[in-house]
Protein backbone atom coordinates (compact mmCIF):
# COMPACT_ATOMS: atom_id res chain seq x y z
CA UNK A 1 0.00 0.00 0.00
CA UNK A 2 1.30 3.46 -0.92
CA UNK A 3 1.17 5.82 2.06
CA UNK A 4 1.16 9.61 1.94
CA UNK A 5 4.21 11.06 3.67
CA UNK A 6 3.84 10.89 7.46
CA UNK A 7 2.89 14.29 8.80
CA UNK A 8 1.61 15.55 5.42
CA UNK A 9 -1.79 17.20 5.15
CA UNK A 10 -3.31 14.19 3.34
CA UNK A 11 -1.93 11.82 5.98
CA UNK A 12 -3.44 13.86 8.80
CA UNK A 13 -6.75 14.20 6.97
CA UNK A 14 -7.04 10.45 6.47
CA UNK A 15 -6.21 9.87 10.13
CA UNK A 16 -8.82 12.44 11.12
CA UNK A 17 -11.54 10.81 9.00
CA UNK A 18 -10.68 7.39 10.42
CA UNK A 19 -10.79 8.63 14.02
CA UNK A 20 -14.06 10.49 13.42
CA UNK A 21 -15.85 7.49 11.89
CA UNK A 22 -14.46 5.07 14.47
CA UNK A 23 -15.19 7.41 17.37
CA UNK A 24 -18.74 7.91 16.07
CA UNK A 25 -19.29 4.16 15.90
CA UNK A 26 -17.89 3.79 19.44
CA UNK A 27 -20.36 6.35 20.78
CA UNK A 28 -23.14 4.54 18.91
CA UNK A 29 -22.03 1.26 20.49
CA UNK A 30 -22.00 3.00 23.87
CA UNK A 31 -25.64 4.05 23.47
CA UNK A 32 -26.60 0.59 22.22
CA UNK A 33 -25.05 -1.09 25.27
CA UNK A 34 -26.78 1.29 27.67
CA UNK A 35 -30.10 0.55 25.94
CA UNK A 36 -29.60 -3.22 26.02
CA UNK A 37 -28.76 -3.19 29.73
CA UNK A 38 -31.87 -1.13 30.37
CA UNK A 39 -33.99 -3.63 28.41
CA UNK A 40 -34.57 -1.46 25.32
CA UNK A 41 -33.63 -2.33 21.72
CA UNK A 42 -31.76 0.98 21.51
CA UNK A 43 -30.69 2.91 18.42
CA UNK A 44 -28.56 1.31 15.71
CA UNK A 45 -24.79 1.56 16.23
CA UNK A 46 -24.47 3.95 13.31
CA UNK A 47 -27.05 6.30 14.86
CA UNK A 48 -24.52 8.69 16.40
CA UNK A 49 -22.89 9.24 13.00
CA UNK A 50 -26.27 9.68 11.28
CA UNK A 51 -27.23 12.12 14.01
CA UNK A 52 -24.03 14.11 13.45
CA UNK A 53 -24.39 14.22 9.66
CA UNK A 54 -28.08 15.11 9.98
CA UNK A 55 -27.22 18.37 11.72
CA UNK A 56 -25.09 19.47 8.75
CA UNK A 57 -28.19 19.66 6.53
CA UNK A 58 -30.50 21.22 9.14
CA UNK A 59 -31.35 24.89 9.28
CA UNK A 60 -29.03 26.95 11.46
CA UNK A 61 -30.96 29.00 13.99
CA UNK A 62 -29.30 31.63 16.14
CA UNK A 63 -31.31 32.83 19.16
CA UNK A 64 -32.02 36.57 19.36
CA UNK A 65 -30.66 36.58 22.90
CA UNK A 66 -27.32 35.16 21.81
CA UNK A 67 -24.01 36.88 21.29
CA UNK A 68 -23.69 35.83 17.64
CA UNK A 69 -19.90 35.96 17.06
CA UNK A 70 -19.24 34.05 20.28
CA UNK A 71 -22.15 31.66 19.59
CA UNK A 72 -20.48 30.50 16.36
CA UNK A 73 -16.78 30.96 17.11
CA UNK A 74 -16.69 29.12 20.42
CA UNK A 75 -18.12 25.97 18.82
CA UNK A 76 -15.45 26.13 16.12
CA UNK A 77 -12.88 26.53 18.90
CA UNK A 78 -14.23 23.43 20.66
CA UNK A 79 -13.78 21.34 17.51
CA UNK A 80 -10.43 22.92 16.69
CA UNK A 81 -8.92 22.06 20.08
CA UNK A 82 -9.86 18.41 19.68
CA UNK A 83 -8.48 18.33 16.14
CA UNK A 84 -5.24 19.77 17.55
CA UNK A 85 -5.23 17.26 20.41
CA UNK A 86 -5.80 14.44 17.93
CA UNK A 87 -2.98 15.55 15.67
CA UNK A 88 -0.55 16.05 18.57
CA UNK A 89 -1.53 12.77 20.23
CA UNK A 90 -2.43 9.74 18.12
CA UNK A 91 -0.94 11.10 14.85
CA UNK A 92 2.35 12.75 15.84
CA UNK A 93 2.92 11.26 19.33
CA UNK A 94 3.96 14.69 20.54
CA UNK A 95 3.89 16.32 23.98
CA UNK A 96 1.12 15.16 26.30
CA UNK A 97 1.12 18.61 27.88
CA UNK A 98 -0.42 20.05 24.69
CA UNK A 99 -3.29 17.58 24.99
CA UNK A 100 -3.82 18.65 28.61
CA UNK A 101 -3.87 22.25 27.43
CA UNK A 102 -6.42 21.36 24.74
CA UNK A 103 -8.53 19.70 27.40
CA UNK A 104 -8.41 22.83 29.53
CA UNK A 105 -9.44 24.99 26.56
CA UNK A 106 -12.24 22.51 25.91
CA UNK A 107 -13.61 23.24 29.39
CA UNK A 108 -13.42 26.97 28.67
CA UNK A 109 -15.25 26.35 25.38
CA UNK A 110 -18.02 24.47 27.19
CA UNK A 111 -18.38 27.47 29.48
CA UNK A 112 -18.38 29.88 26.53
CA UNK A 113 -20.94 27.85 24.56
CA UNK A 114 -23.25 27.96 27.56
CA UNK A 115 -22.90 31.71 28.02
CA UNK A 116 -23.17 32.59 24.32
CA UNK A 117 -26.81 31.68 23.72
CA UNK A 118 -28.37 33.65 26.57
CA UNK A 119 -30.69 30.80 27.61
CA UNK A 120 -30.99 30.12 31.35
CA UNK A 121 -30.51 26.38 30.77
CA UNK A 122 -27.28 26.84 28.84
CA UNK A 123 -26.08 29.35 31.45
CA UNK A 124 -26.69 26.75 34.14
CA UNK A 125 -24.77 24.19 32.03
CA UNK A 126 -22.00 26.73 31.63
CA UNK A 127 -21.84 27.29 35.41
CA UNK A 128 -21.67 23.55 35.94
CA UNK A 129 -18.86 23.34 33.37
CA UNK A 130 -16.82 25.62 35.63
CA UNK A 131 -17.77 23.57 38.68
CA UNK A 132 -16.84 20.33 36.93
CA UNK A 133 -13.54 21.89 35.85
CA UNK A 134 -12.55 21.84 39.51
CA UNK A 135 -13.00 18.06 39.37
CA UNK A 136 -10.34 17.60 36.71
CA UNK A 137 -7.62 16.91 39.27
CA UNK A 138 -6.79 13.49 37.76
CA UNK A 139 -5.74 15.39 34.66
CA UNK A 140 -3.01 17.09 36.67
CA UNK A 141 -2.15 14.23 39.04
CA UNK A 142 -1.79 11.47 36.43
CA UNK A 143 0.58 13.30 34.04
CA UNK A 144 2.66 14.51 37.01
CA UNK A 145 3.05 10.94 38.26
CA UNK A 146 3.82 9.72 34.74
CA UNK A 147 6.48 12.43 34.45
CA UNK A 148 8.08 11.52 37.80
CA UNK A 149 8.21 7.89 36.68
CA UNK A 150 9.35 8.29 33.07
CA UNK A 151 11.03 11.74 33.17
CA UNK A 152 9.22 12.71 30.00
CA UNK A 153 5.82 13.88 28.84
CA UNK A 154 6.45 13.22 25.14
CA UNK A 155 4.05 10.47 24.12
CA UNK A 156 6.49 8.59 21.87
CA UNK A 157 8.99 8.46 24.75
CA UNK A 158 6.31 7.30 27.19
CA UNK A 159 5.41 4.47 24.79
CA UNK A 160 9.08 3.51 24.37
CA UNK A 161 9.52 3.54 28.16
CA UNK A 162 6.61 1.13 28.53
CA UNK A 163 7.89 -1.16 25.78
CA UNK A 164 11.17 -1.44 27.72
CA UNK A 165 9.88 -1.43 31.32
CA UNK A 166 6.32 -2.70 31.06
CA UNK A 167 3.03 -0.84 31.15
CA UNK A 168 2.71 2.06 33.57
CA UNK A 169 -0.55 0.57 34.83
CA UNK A 170 1.53 -1.86 36.88
CA UNK A 171 3.47 1.01 38.51
CA UNK A 172 0.69 3.59 38.73
CA UNK A 173 -2.59 1.65 39.09
CA UNK A 174 -4.33 4.31 41.17
CA UNK A 175 -3.37 7.03 38.70
CA UNK A 176 -4.80 4.83 35.93
CA UNK A 177 -8.06 4.43 37.86
CA UNK A 178 -8.25 8.19 38.45
CA UNK A 179 -7.72 8.77 34.72
CA UNK A 180 -10.39 6.19 33.95
CA UNK A 181 -12.80 8.17 36.15
CA UNK A 182 -11.85 11.27 34.15
CA UNK A 183 -12.53 9.35 30.93
CA UNK A 184 -15.85 8.20 32.35
CA UNK A 185 -16.77 11.79 33.17
CA UNK A 186 -16.42 12.68 29.49
CA UNK A 187 -18.59 9.83 28.25
CA UNK A 188 -22.24 10.58 27.35
CA UNK A 189 -24.84 9.64 30.02
CA UNK A 190 -22.14 9.24 32.68
CA UNK A 191 -22.85 9.70 36.41
CA UNK A 192 -20.63 12.81 36.53
CA UNK A 193 -22.13 14.45 33.40
CA UNK A 194 -23.65 17.38 35.26
CA UNK A 195 -22.97 19.76 32.37
CA UNK A 196 -25.34 17.78 30.09
CA UNK A 197 -27.83 16.92 32.84
CA UNK A 198 -31.39 16.41 31.64
CA UNK A 199 -32.55 18.48 34.61
CA UNK A 200 -31.26 21.44 32.61
CA UNK A 201 -32.61 20.10 29.23
CA UNK A 202 -29.27 19.46 27.46
CA UNK A 203 -27.04 21.73 29.52
CA UNK A 204 -24.73 24.10 27.67
CA UNK A 205 -25.75 22.80 24.24
CA UNK A 206 -29.53 23.20 24.64
CA UNK A 207 -29.73 26.06 22.13
CA UNK A 208 -27.28 24.83 19.51
CA UNK A 209 -28.82 23.31 16.38
CA UNK A 210 -28.04 23.00 12.69
CA UNK A 211 -24.55 22.90 11.31
CA UNK A 212 -23.14 24.41 14.49
CA UNK A 213 -24.38 21.40 16.49
CA UNK A 214 -22.87 19.11 13.84
CA UNK A 215 -19.50 20.80 14.28
CA UNK A 216 -19.85 20.46 18.06
CA UNK A 217 -20.61 16.74 17.74
CA UNK A 218 -17.62 16.30 15.43
CA UNK A 219 -15.41 17.79 18.15
CA UNK A 220 -16.99 15.63 20.84
CA UNK A 221 -16.45 12.44 18.82
CA UNK A 222 -12.79 13.33 18.28
CA UNK A 223 -12.48 14.22 21.97
CA UNK A 224 -13.81 10.82 23.01
CA UNK A 225 -11.35 9.10 20.66
CA UNK A 226 -8.41 11.17 21.93
CA UNK A 227 -9.22 10.61 25.61
CA UNK A 228 -9.63 6.86 25.10
CA UNK A 229 -6.37 6.79 23.16
CA UNK A 230 -4.53 8.77 25.85
CA UNK A 231 -5.78 6.47 28.61
CA UNK A 232 -4.70 3.34 26.74
CA UNK A 233 -1.39 4.73 25.51
CA UNK A 234 -0.23 6.25 28.79
CA UNK A 235 -1.10 3.33 31.06
CA UNK A 236 -1.12 0.33 28.72
CA UNK A 237 1.35 1.51 26.07
CA UNK A 238 3.52 -1.56 26.62
CA UNK A 239 0.73 -3.87 25.48
CA UNK A 240 -1.44 -1.81 23.15
CA UNK A 241 0.82 0.11 20.81
CA UNK A 242 -0.46 -0.72 17.33
CA UNK A 243 -3.56 0.86 15.75
CA UNK A 244 -5.35 -2.51 15.62
CA UNK A 245 -4.76 -3.41 19.29
CA UNK A 246 -5.62 0.12 20.39
CA UNK A 247 -8.84 0.19 18.36
CA UNK A 248 -9.94 -3.25 19.59
CA UNK A 249 -9.20 -2.25 23.19
CA UNK A 250 -11.13 0.98 22.66
CA UNK A 251 -14.17 -1.17 21.83
CA UNK A 252 -13.63 -3.12 25.07
CA UNK A 253 -13.26 0.03 27.18
CA UNK A 254 -16.37 1.52 25.53
CA UNK A 255 -18.34 -1.58 26.52
CA UNK A 256 -17.14 -1.21 30.15
CA UNK A 257 -18.05 2.50 30.08
CA UNK A 258 -21.48 1.58 28.70
CA UNK A 259 -22.09 -0.81 31.60
CA UNK A 260 -21.08 1.83 34.15
CA UNK A 261 -23.19 4.57 32.53
CA UNK A 262 -26.23 2.30 32.28
CA UNK A 263 -26.09 1.19 35.90
CA UNK A 264 -25.32 4.44 37.69
CA UNK A 265 -27.66 7.40 38.15
CA UNK A 266 -26.44 10.95 37.65
CA UNK A 267 -24.82 12.25 40.80
CA UNK A 268 -25.58 15.67 42.28
CA UNK A 269 -23.10 18.36 41.10
CA UNK A 270 -21.17 18.73 44.37
CA UNK A 271 -20.97 14.97 44.92
CA UNK A 272 -19.71 14.57 41.36
CA UNK A 273 -16.81 16.92 42.08
CA UNK A 274 -16.10 15.34 45.48
CA UNK A 275 -15.94 11.79 44.10
CA UNK A 276 -13.52 12.79 41.33
CA UNK A 277 -11.35 14.59 43.90
CA UNK A 278 -11.29 11.46 46.07
CA UNK A 279 -9.99 9.39 43.15
CA UNK A 280 -7.38 12.06 42.35
CA UNK A 281 -6.20 12.09 45.96
CA UNK A 282 -6.08 8.29 46.01
CA UNK A 283 -3.90 8.46 42.91
CA UNK A 284 -1.38 10.48 44.91
CA UNK A 285 -0.71 7.34 46.98
CA UNK A 286 1.12 6.16 43.87
CA UNK A 287 3.84 8.68 44.72
CA UNK A 288 5.02 6.14 47.29
CA UNK A 289 5.79 3.62 44.54
CA UNK A 290 7.83 5.91 42.30
Amino acid at each position, binding site marked *: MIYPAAGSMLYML*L*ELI*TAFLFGG*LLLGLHRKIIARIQGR*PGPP*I*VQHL*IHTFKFYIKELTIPETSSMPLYVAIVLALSAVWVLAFLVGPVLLGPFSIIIMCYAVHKVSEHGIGLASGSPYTKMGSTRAVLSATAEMPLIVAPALVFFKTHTLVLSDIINYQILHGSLFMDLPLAAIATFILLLSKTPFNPFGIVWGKDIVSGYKTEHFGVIRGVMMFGEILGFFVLLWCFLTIFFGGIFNT*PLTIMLTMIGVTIILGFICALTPMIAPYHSVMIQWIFALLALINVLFI
Partner: protein
Amino acid sequence: MPYFDYLPHIVLFTVGTLIGLEVSYKWHSEPFVNKKIEPIPLIIALIGGGLIVIYAPLGLLFLGFVVGMRPGYGVYETVLGILFALILWVILVII
Protein backbone atom coordinates in the same frame (compact mmCIF):
# COMPACT_ATOMS: atom_id res chain seq x y z
CA MET B 1 1.47 1.98 10.96
CA PRO B 2 -1.26 4.62 10.53
CA TYR B 3 -4.85 4.32 11.70
CA PHE B 4 -6.18 4.90 8.18
CA ASP B 5 -5.00 1.41 7.27
CA TYR B 6 -8.35 0.48 8.78
CA LEU B 7 -10.33 3.19 6.99
CA PRO B 8 -11.71 0.73 4.37
CA HIS B 9 -12.82 -1.56 7.21
CA ILE B 10 -14.60 1.25 9.04
CA VAL B 11 -16.14 2.81 5.92
CA LEU B 12 -17.47 -0.50 4.57
CA PHE B 13 -18.81 -1.48 8.00
CA THR B 14 -20.57 1.89 8.26
CA VAL B 15 -22.00 1.54 4.74
CA GLY B 16 -23.16 -1.98 5.64
CA THR B 17 -24.97 -0.74 8.75
CA LEU B 18 -26.68 2.02 6.75
CA ILE B 19 -27.84 -0.43 4.07
CA GLY B 20 -28.97 -2.87 6.77
CA LEU B 21 -30.97 -0.16 8.49
CA GLU B 22 -32.73 0.92 5.30
CA VAL B 23 -33.45 -2.59 4.05
CA SER B 24 -34.67 -3.94 7.38
CA TYR B 25 -37.15 -1.09 7.72
CA LYS B 26 -38.47 -2.08 4.26
CA TRP B 27 -38.78 -5.69 5.45
CA HIS B 28 -40.33 -4.84 8.81
CA SER B 29 -42.67 -1.91 8.94
CA GLU B 30 -44.80 -3.53 11.67
CA PRO B 31 -44.34 -2.89 15.41
CA PHE B 32 -41.45 -4.88 16.89
CA VAL B 33 -42.68 -8.43 17.53
CA ASN B 34 -40.22 -10.70 15.71
CA LYS B 35 -37.80 -12.63 17.87
CA LYS B 36 -37.05 -15.46 15.43
CA ILE B 37 -33.91 -16.05 13.41
CA GLU B 38 -34.55 -14.91 9.85
CA PRO B 39 -32.99 -16.83 6.96
CA ILE B 40 -31.77 -13.97 4.73
CA PRO B 41 -29.95 -11.99 7.47
CA LEU B 42 -28.51 -15.27 8.74
CA ILE B 43 -27.06 -16.08 5.31
CA ILE B 44 -25.68 -12.53 5.01
CA ALA B 45 -24.13 -12.83 8.49
CA LEU B 46 -22.52 -16.17 7.66
CA ILE B 47 -21.17 -14.80 4.35
CA GLY B 48 -19.78 -11.83 6.32
CA GLY B 49 -18.29 -14.11 8.95
CA GLY B 50 -16.65 -16.21 6.25
CA LEU B 51 -15.36 -13.26 4.24
CA ILE B 52 -13.92 -11.51 7.29
CA VAL B 53 -11.17 -14.12 7.48
CA ILE B 54 -10.40 -13.82 3.75
CA TYR B 55 -10.84 -10.08 3.15
CA ALA B 56 -11.87 -8.26 6.31
CA PRO B 57 -13.36 -5.02 4.85
CA LEU B 58 -15.79 -6.98 2.64
CA GLY B 59 -16.68 -9.27 5.54
CA LEU B 60 -17.38 -6.23 7.70
CA LEU B 61 -19.70 -4.85 4.99
CA PHE B 62 -21.87 -7.97 5.26
CA LEU B 63 -21.62 -8.19 9.04
CA GLY B 64 -22.39 -4.47 9.25
CA PHE B 65 -25.63 -5.19 7.36
CA VAL B 66 -26.97 -7.42 10.16
CA VAL B 67 -25.46 -5.31 12.96
CA GLY B 68 -27.16 -2.22 11.56
CA MET B 69 -30.61 -3.74 11.05
CA ARG B 70 -33.65 -2.14 12.64
CA PRO B 71 -33.26 -2.14 16.45
CA GLY B 72 -34.32 -5.51 17.84
CA TYR B 73 -33.72 -7.38 14.56
CA GLY B 74 -30.55 -9.17 13.46
CA VAL B 75 -29.24 -9.78 16.98
CA TYR B 76 -29.03 -13.58 16.84
CA GLU B 77 -27.84 -13.46 13.24
CA THR B 78 -25.00 -11.10 14.24
CA VAL B 79 -23.91 -13.37 17.09
CA LEU B 80 -23.98 -16.42 14.79
CA GLY B 81 -22.01 -14.56 12.10
CA ILE B 82 -19.31 -13.52 14.60
CA LEU B 83 -19.16 -17.05 16.06
CA PHE B 84 -18.80 -18.48 12.54
CA ALA B 85 -15.97 -16.02 11.84
CA LEU B 86 -14.23 -17.00 15.08
CA ILE B 87 -14.53 -20.73 14.35
CA LEU B 88 -13.27 -20.21 10.80
CA TRP B 89 -10.37 -18.06 12.07
CA VAL B 90 -9.36 -20.73 14.59
CA ILE B 91 -9.50 -23.44 11.91
CA LEU B 92 -7.69 -21.50 9.16
CA VAL B 93 -5.22 -19.38 11.14
CA ILE B 94 -4.59 -21.00 14.53
CA ILE B 95 -4.74 -24.69 13.50
